[in-house]
């Protein structure tokens, strides 16, 4: 088993620390290591930004779904099978020709797990959390995104249990595309607001 040697001193400090923690909890019967495996498996292989991409693609292709997403995002997203932890109270915010949306959690790392999976390191780190609310244009440029000066930017600081999903604008040249093909244009960053959906050329 993986937990035979909590005293190993050749481990890096965090490996040793977490191993000691897990070992004590398992020995005391407080956690089930197989449950830990199942949690990891869920977020490594089952829940991720492909979920959110399906939501966005459906909103692009189906105006009735887009309306539902606007008025009750939690229910609309649940209809595609995406529910649960860190997605209990969803809000969808739609980019337009005039307004670009950007999501941050300045206080911790709140992120819509049910549709995007676990957040990337940069989302949880001080540079993004500190600057997204005061210098979002500067932040976006670090992602290679330069918005027109007249485009309004709206930043959503996730200070409560509402979780925000950005619906990027549908790229031009995608008329008649099936939802599955459209989903291939929807990047994780475009659903946080640090990117745009891909142009059709990029999908091939």
């Amino acid at each position, binding site marked *: 088993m993986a937990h035979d040697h909590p005293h190993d001193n050749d481990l890096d400090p*965090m490996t040793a620390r977490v*191993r000691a*923690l897990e070992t004590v909890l398992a020995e005391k019967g407080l956690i089930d290591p197989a*449950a830990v495996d199942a949690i990891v498996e*869920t977020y490594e292989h089952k829940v991720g930004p492909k979920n959110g991409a399906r939501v966005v693609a459906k909103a692009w292709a189906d105006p009735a779904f887009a309306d539902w997403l606007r008025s009750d995002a939690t229910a609309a997203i649940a209809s595609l099978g995406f529910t649960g932890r860190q997605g*209990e109270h969803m809000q969808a915010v739609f980019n337009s020709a005039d307004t670009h949306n950007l999501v941050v959690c300045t206080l911790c790392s709140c992120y819509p797990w049910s549709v995007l999976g676990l957040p990337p390191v940069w989302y949880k780190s001080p540079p993004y*959390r500190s600057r997204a609310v*005061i210098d979002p244009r500067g*932040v976006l440029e670090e992602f290679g995104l330069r918005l027109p000066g007249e485009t309004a930017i709206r930043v959503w600081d996730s200070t*409560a249990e509402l979780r925000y999903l950005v619906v990027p604008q549908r790229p031009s040249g995608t008329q008649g595309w099936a939802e599955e093909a459209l989903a291939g244009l929807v990047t994780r960053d475009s659903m946080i607001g640090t990117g745009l959906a891909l142009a059709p050329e990029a999908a091939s």
Partner: protein
Amino acid sequence: MNGPHDLGGQMGFGAVAPEADEPIFHADWEKRALGVTLAAGGMGHWTIDESRHARECLHPADYYASSYYEIWTKALERLLVRHGFVTEDELADGRARAAGAAPKRVLRAADVPAALARGGPCDRPVADRPRFAVGARVRTRTIHPKGHTRLPRYARGKVGVVEAARGGFVFPDANAHGTGEAPQHLYTIVFSARELWGEAADPTLSVSIDAWEDYLEPADER
């Protein structure tokens, strides 16, 4: 609390460093840290609000020197000691000694899919009508509580507009400290960047927070 976690508007942390094709985990211990944190939370002895407060109570030097999963791990250790499940000695050498507190429940592998799919909804009925109407101008209170709060410093004492009333939600400022859920109405409040950051701010920028009723007063009250 005015802790190290309250980062909005802070300076000096440098550029954002997006990582191309970032892996979901950067080390195996991060996987275990995630899983152990969620599994231990599944015992039901602390709330998400108490967890967040444990993270923000790390010493600032420690908080800023730690990756996010390190922050989670260190906070979890504190929660486990606080609630009597483990001792510092046990954590130090990874060997269980005394029995410690008994858990209300233990999350089993078979129950993980349902538990994750259920999550932990925080909306609650509130008997009182919302105090503020959509479209109203409100001022966030200038408060500096020593305990947990979700009103960031950059948005205190600022005038904004109620964009949406979200219904009743568990109040973290109470719930983090074990004094009950005390649900209150929650609102999305939008501010101009100029209100938050002064006249030199980008006129095309607006920022919103989600704020509980206790964080707000009518804009004309003082």
